[in-house]
């Protein structure tokens, strides 16, 4: 049963899937990993991104990835507004843990039902010329439907990682999580920086959403399947580490894929979350966590 070509294909499929998971989780790696904001509505924003991709794709035939990128300013703005509300209501008063969580639960439900009421509950799909084709390298098959999201995810993660480590604003974001007081003393306003970071986090959901609807059909409540996954990835990778998140996403994708292939798909969620529990038990700061 353990044949070389089956295993190598499972690994490749896992890596591609992991890349997609990274695209979905990167926003949370910023908002939760670095800013400590428990944004449980993150997958719901991704679904909104999927719907925008669907609308523009079915009406104007635009490429989904293009739509995802074009819509980022809108999502960024929404992120900034959300953060301002969150800050005024919670962070300023120091209530963030439970109340912030409940707040985002509320936002998640509002987004989900909003989509249901406006667009109904039928499954939505997109079409693009490359969906359905695949490359073959020897016995390894690489479907474009998975390769394109993987590539986009890689570019997005790489871009954000570079931004955070090389630019002033980026490093300010990393600093604000670690020591807001020191940052203030250096003359930067922590609130403005966090606001920008959260906006950036939500902006990524626009792209992630368009990738999601390329991979499979979308309806408003499927965001719930991703809540566990994205938090698991961020925690597994280590809070605050973008590269850790990417590797964690890879691990999750590969584990799911290999277990699916050899043991049976029904065990994949248990194994994935079992891995998470094990990591938390043995090394709570995650693989590359800073704290």
């Amino acid at each position, binding site marked *: 049963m353990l044949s070389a070509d089956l295993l190598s294909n499972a690994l490749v499929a896992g890596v591609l899937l992991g890349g997609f998971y990274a695209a979905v989780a990167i926003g949370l790696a910023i908002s*939760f990993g670095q800013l*400590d904001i*428990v944004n449980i509505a993150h997958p719901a924003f991704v679904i909104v991104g999927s719907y925008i991709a669907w609308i523009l794709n079915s009406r104007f035939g635009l490429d989904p990835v293009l739509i995802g990128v074009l819509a980022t300013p809108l999502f960024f703005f929404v992120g900034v507004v959300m953060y301002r*509300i969150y800050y005024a*209501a*919670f962070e300023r*008063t120091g*209530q963030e*843990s*439970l*109340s912030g*969580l*409940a*707040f985002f*639960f*509320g*936002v*998640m*439900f*509002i987004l*989900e*039902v*909003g989509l*249901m*009421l406006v667009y109904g509950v039928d499954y939505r799909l997109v079409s693009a010329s490359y969906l359905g084709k695949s490359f073959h390298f020897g016995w390894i098959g690489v479907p474009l439907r998975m390769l394109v999201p993987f590539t986009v995810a890689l570019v997005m993660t790489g871009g954000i990682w570079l931004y955070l480590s090389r630019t002033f604003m980026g490093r300010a974001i990393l600093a604000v999580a670690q020591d807001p007081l020191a940052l203030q003393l250096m003359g930067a306003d922590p609130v403005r920086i966090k606001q920008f970071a959260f906006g950036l986090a939500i902006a990524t959901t626009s792209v992630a959403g368009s990738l999601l609807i390329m991979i499979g059909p979308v309806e408003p409540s499927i965001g*719930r399947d991703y*809540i*566990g996954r994205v*938090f*698991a990835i961020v*925690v597994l990778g280590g809070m605050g580490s973008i590269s850790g998140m990417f590797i964690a996403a890879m691990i999750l994708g590969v584990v799911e894929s290999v277990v699916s292939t050899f043991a049976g798909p*029904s*065990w994949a*969620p*248990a194994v994935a*979350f*079992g891995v*998470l*529990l094990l990591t*938390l*038990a043995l090394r*709570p700061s995650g693989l590359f966590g800073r704290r």
Partner: protein
Amino acid sequence: MKLRVNAFWVSCAVVVGGGLMLTEVLHNDYYFNAMYVILQGTLMAVAWNILGGFTGYVNFGSAGFFAVGAYTSIFLDKYFGHALPLPVLIAAAALVCALIGLGVGYLSLRLKGVYFSIATLAMAIVFATLISNWRYMGGARGAYILTPETFLWFHSYIQMLFMVILLLTLGAVAISRYLNTSRLGRGLAAIRDDEVAAECAGVPTLRLKLISTTLMGALMGIAGAPYPFFVTFVDPASAFSLFVAVNAIAMPMIGGTSHWIGPVIGAVLLGSMQQVITVTVSSELNVLLVGLMLVGFVTLAPQGIVGLAQKYWRRRAR
């Protein structure tokens, strides 16, 4: 001191008496159905609050405990061929879930804050997957339980279930009230406010946390045990549903997490609204309702209804 205790137990007796009276006077099963759901939500909310509100550890995996309680009930019922009476099933579910709660308590040693919450979520998903793959329990196809038409002197089975859950809920409230007002409760509050300081001050944090998680687990299991008999068909998707978990958090938050009556108020309020919406407008609005109420209360009234009431009384007292 004496007066305080009397007031509480008297109201409990009044509620129980009122419930019994209703079973004689009211013949529409629908109301008992609706009240059962509201009471179940109350029980879950009170249980959650023991760990969440009193001790400060947020449990995302409430649905896991609830579902394990329900499935323990189904398993024993099937295995012994319907021979075991409901109280035995409830006790068994309580035991199983208390043990899981104990495990979760040890988990809290290594994990704090949001890590703990994510671990509880992961645990619920692992349980859901295990049960989905367990063919004897029907797996993902679900399990059926057939219930008799009447039971003892009650006019219908649901009336009996209603009384059962009413008693269970009152019991949970009593436990919660005891925790809140006792020395134990002050220890829990110390952990919630600053665990490290509490440890330094000599509070036996591990023991208290274990008590807290075990109680929470047991009570949630108790909430789940009669559920299969209420709904007659249980499948992992509905038992482990996110909505159960969110309600368990939303109800105490809306009512107020620091006082034992908070979850009760939140549950009765939110639960009743949900029941009314289900049979009037549309069920998807229930989800919207929870969302709006959460956002509303959490931004405007973070201490919940109890907090609002306390502010009001304080202002009156001036």
